[in-house]
């Protein structure tokens, strides 16, 4: 069994009654790179939140590897999250910390040793192509560079699964491709990657698995798919 992520009959109804997901069935295998597309409000972000346990499903099962995510005990959640990297459209960097510190932060809060910080941070900075930007603050970086920092922070704890929620939403096309190339590289090194996006160009040129959502349901799931239905 090679499944990295499995969802069985998952529904999510928020407290205010909004049905964000209904009867989702989904399996993503180890090493896949999957696009999740669909209009705003389709439920893409909610799906991610169920995977990293920001939210609990109203019904159904969510499995990451051999762990049932909703059944994780409170104390297990932080350890679990170290295995699930996240990046967002708005980067979520700390403005009063440098590039180096922003990435080191992810290691420090999990009580990594200084030795580990000094080994891992330069390595991921190298990987995302920001070797000489370690001392820069977020406001001194372009949007693309900021997203690279957030990507570096997401992978520094070596997650088994990486979820990118509209990572190119604030970036111009060229910069977006830079981020996409990095995600492909990270995926090539073994991390399962899920990416929610509105970027037609990228989805159509990549020809990877595409899951299309609408009104909280999966309406299409194709290998080597495109952004829109092809007739």
């Amino acid at each position, binding site marked *: 069994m090679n499944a990295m992520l499995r969802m069985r009959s998952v529904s999510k109804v928020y407290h205010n009654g909004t049905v964000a997901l209904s009867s989702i069935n989904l399996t993503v295998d180890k090493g896949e790179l999957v696009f999740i597309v669909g209009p705003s409000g389709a439920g893409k972000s909610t799906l991610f939140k169920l995977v990293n346990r920001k939210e609990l499903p109203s019904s159904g099962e969510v499995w990451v590897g051999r762990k049932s995510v909703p059944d994780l005990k409170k*104390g297990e959640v*932080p350890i679990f999250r170290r295995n699930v990297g996240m990046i967002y459209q708005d980067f979520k960097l*700390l403005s009063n910390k440098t590039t180096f510190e922003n990435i080191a*932060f*992810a290691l*420090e*809060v999990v*009580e990594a040793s200084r030795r580990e910080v000094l080994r891992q941070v330069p390595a991921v900075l190298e990987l995302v192509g920001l070797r000489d930007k370690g001392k820069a603050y977020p406001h001194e970086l372009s949007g693309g560079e900021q997203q690279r920092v957030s990507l570096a*922070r997401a992978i520094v704890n070596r997650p088994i699964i990486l979820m990118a929620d509209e990572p190119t939403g604030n970036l111009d096309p060229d910069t977006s491709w830079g981020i996409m190339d990095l995600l492909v590289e990270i995926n090539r090194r073994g991390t399962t990657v899920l990416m929610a996006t509105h970027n037609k160009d990228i989805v159509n040129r990549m020809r990877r698995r595409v899951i299309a959502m609408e009104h909280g349901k999966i309406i299409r799931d194709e290998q080597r798919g495109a952004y829109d239905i092809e007739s």
Partner: protein
Amino acid sequence: MTLKAKTLFHCFKEGWGNLARNSLMSLASIGTVLVSLLVLGGVSLLALNLNHMADMALQSTKIRVLLKEDVNFDATEQVRFWLQRQAGVESYQFISKQEGLMRLEGIFGIEEGVFRDGDEEFLPEEFEVSLNSDADAEKLVTGLLSLSSVEEVLYGQEFYSQVRTVSKIAFIGGIIVLLLVGFATLLIITNTIRLTVFARRREIEIMSLVGATDWYIRWPYIFEGLLIGIIGSLLAALLLSRGYYFLERKLVNVASFLHLVTYDSVQLHLTWILIGVGAAFGLIGSLISVKRFLKAS
């Protein structure tokens, strides 16, 4: 929830940083802790002094121990034996029936023939006891009363118990005031920490995103509360000691008959109590805040 030394240091540093960054609210919190503890300290000192005065009054008067008649053993010996073993007894004197009568005659005079021969038979034998300054007068009295040969013990009961009552009322009143001020203190500490949590919500969100444990996220705020409490209590201890020395000096001049407890004799206890109560305020305040406002996951 094991904390590495490095993490502990980190949390302490962060807590201190929070305190400094949010300086206005921090000062307000420290101020209310200070006020609460001044009330607590002031009330404690007042009650201590009233009790002290009651003890002093009791020590300076002599205790009269009246013996029972018609006991089939030597009452005098039993009491004498008991008094000999009491550390608080400075000296005692046996007063026979005859001496008792002579004392009465000394007080009321003999010219008018108030007393007749044989009157001494109606008087009890007694001991007159002087206490030293370490004596626990109340305990001695209870001890004497429990002896089978003792009929009655006479001392400044009324004055003594009145002062004790006043001191109790003052203390209870003080505690009620303390509870009110304490409530306000907790409210302000809780809000101070809520503001810090709010100011740092982005950081907290990211910490939980990358897998920091709840306690790693919470400790700095708990340290912040503890620091508020401890700083407030140290200030209170300092102000109380200065204020008390000042009062002591003033009173020596205007009312030298009042024997105040010396501050040195209570300082250590009082300081620790203030620090303990202050730290508890800070800890409880921050725990409430962290529980209510820091939804880490």
